[in-house]
């Protein structure tokens, strides 16, 4: 049966008219009914559920989903229900970018909560900047970023080290051995550490980087023995943390005289290395599971009840949790037709809430978070003992190591 040209043209015109009427947001720009439609507001959840970093990221996924469930159970945001769209980028930065694109463009998510590694964050950044969307990043990282499309709720180097380094010098001594895995995060942290050491009269006896995944530390331990540092500032990650701690202990070194000070060893790593190897070493972070506060008790209790008694909360899952509540707070200030990534970002500037670690606030200039750094010592039972809690919350300065640059509300400024 052949179609006549007239019929074909009539059919196409009719279809086109139907399409444009049925899907107004393809020709109405910024049709905000697309963001919060039908009593629902869609958000993306982008954490790896499979692959090498899945172990940590699936706990971030759990914390995010739990927060969304809590908000929905309490009536949603001004009656709007949050609908999480969960994607699994499988620990691969390229897949992170693909899934981010899908969440922002096809699924119309007004915000996406995600990423653990800096590599994945850098991979998705172009998506959010190009589409002017909003990404909420809960992980401690190396700073040196000033995107207007990301809310950073994890600690930056100045928040983790400003109180930690002088405390270490005062309690243990001036000689520091810097050892890290060979990629950007340890290098930036060590860069900042060296600046602090210079300021407080410390001394770097050696600085070295081991390949990612490296697990043979006997030569490194020999160097510890021969150079006798007072503190080992360790930024190794993943398998290397466990191997270093276990071999340190097997070699008979004493954490009371030569402790390891880390920014990344959490309750998860302690479980993998065993209490013996972990005990006596120090971590600086804004949050520990044992922190005593009403908010934290509620959080930990709810988390264990929801996901299992054997789980732990740590300093990346806690920001994953409270950032969703900050999201809710920001959206609640807006009327439904005004909801968009840009308005949410403006609304969240300066927003405060009582998080499990204490009161937190989103800094308007750089979209990072005011946090409460703490110093804790690991115990052989797998938990930490918090030794020092900072008296004031610390302002985030992502460019603290680069005095010529500041992140302001108008972008990166050279001073």
């Amino acid at each position: 049966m052949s179609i006549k040209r007239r019929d074909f043209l009539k059919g196409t015109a009719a279809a086109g008219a139907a399409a444009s009427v049925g899907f107004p947001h393809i020709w109405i720009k910024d049709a905000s009914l697309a963001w919060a439609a039908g009593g629902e507001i869609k958000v993306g959840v982008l954490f790896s559920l499979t692959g090498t970093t899945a172990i940590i990221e699936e706990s971030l996924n759990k914390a995010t989903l739990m927060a969304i469930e809590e908000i929905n159970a309490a009536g949603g945001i001004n009656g709007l229900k949050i609908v999480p769209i969960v994607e699994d980028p499988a620990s691969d930065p390229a897949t992170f970018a693909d899934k981010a694109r899908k969440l922002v463009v096809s699924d119309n998510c007004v915000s996406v909560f995600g990423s653990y590694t800096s590599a994945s964050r850098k991979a998705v950044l172009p998506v959010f900047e190009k589409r002017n969307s909003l990404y909420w990043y809960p992980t401690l990282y190396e700073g040196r970023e000033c995107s207007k499309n990301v809310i950073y709720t994890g600690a930056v180097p100045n928040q983790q080290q400003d109180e930690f380094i002088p405390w270490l010098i005062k309690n243990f001594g001036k000689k520091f051995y810097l050892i890290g895995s060979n990629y950007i995060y340890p290098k930036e942290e060590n860069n900042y550490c060296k600046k602090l050491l210079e300021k407080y009269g410390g001394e770097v006896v050696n600085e070295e980087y081991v390949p990612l995944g490296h697990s043979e530390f006997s030569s490194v331990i020999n160097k510890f023995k021969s150079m006798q540092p007072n503190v080992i500032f360790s930024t190794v990650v993943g398998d290397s943390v466990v191997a270093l701690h276990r071999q340190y202990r097997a070699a008979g070194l004493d954490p009371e005289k030569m402790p390891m000070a880390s920014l990344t060893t959490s309750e998860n790593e302690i479980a993998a290395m065993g209490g013996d190897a972990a005990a006596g070493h120090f971590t600086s972070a804004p949050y520990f599971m044992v922190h005593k506060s009403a908010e934290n008790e509620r959080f930990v209790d709810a988390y264990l009840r929801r996901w299992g008694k054997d789980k732990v909360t740590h300093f990346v899952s806690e920001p994953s949790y409270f950032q969703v509540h900050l999201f809710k707070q920001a959206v609640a200030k807006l009327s439904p037709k005004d909801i968009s990534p840009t308005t949410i970002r403006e609304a969240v500037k300066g927003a405060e809430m009582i998080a499990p670690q204490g009161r937190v606030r989103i800094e308007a200039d750089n979209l990072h978070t005011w946090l409460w750094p703490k110093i804790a010592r690991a115990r052989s039972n797998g938990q930490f003992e918090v030794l020092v809690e900072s008296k004031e919350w610390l302002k985030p300065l992502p460019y603290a190591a680069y005095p010529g640059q500041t992140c302001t509300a108008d972008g990166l400024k050279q001073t």
Partner: protein
Amino acid sequence: MDFALQQLVTGLSIGSILLLVALGLAIIYGSMGVINLAHGEFVMLGAYSAWALQAFLGLDLLPSLALIFLMVAALGWLLERAVIRRLYRRPLDTILATWGLGVLLQQLVRLTAGGELRYVQMPETLSHSVTILGVEASAYRVFIFLAAALLFFVTWFLMQRTTIGMKLRAVVQDPGVAACFGINADRVYGLTFAYGAGLAGLAGALVSPLKSVAPEMGTGYVIDAFMVVVLGGVQSLMGTVVSAFLLGELSGVIAFLQNDTVAKALVLLAIVVLIRFRPQGLFVARVRA
């Protein structure tokens, strides 16, 4: 003087771990000529077996070693019968097939046991330091050294002084003529592959209290193992020992003087240069041409 002794001991320790891991491959690749890229996964399975036996049956590491050897050897035997047997004298296909097996095993472990880093407890009796030649060393590392030496001796004995070893050497030299003498080549190959796999499993179990247990831990080991075997001279057990300790000592010294990243690069460079000028490796098996 003190530094030299300390370095010697460190190098011996690193070398003994290399030897442990490479010994199984020395049998499988060296004696059988099978390029087994799943060797690292056998090591990983040994480590996971140690964890599983400890976590679910409460068995300590030392008593469970024999069981781990048998478990991984059994798996090796199965794989040989199912896959490897069909690919003798087809090296490229063996590479592909064993690589695929390796990926399969890794993901299987990840699906069943999860991707978390697992903990294997060091035996209580070995968790202290001892003084060797005036140098302090971890008792467990000394134990690994002794274990590596013992396993090497057992392997050498099996290969050179027992009937099964003689049968293997005959089959490797010429399967046709060996069959004429009534040697069942299939069974010999199967048992040898299983033995090599079992050794790899033992290596994984022995190393796990010093490091962590993760699904992707095998990849690093298979590279190291091949380097040791190729440098030492394929088909020479003595070569494997010498090259393991040579590489261990070299990487230990360079890592001490510089750092581990540089050590890795320089050691690899040294191997490349050596192979360039002596392609057959350090020790050559004498063959009647």
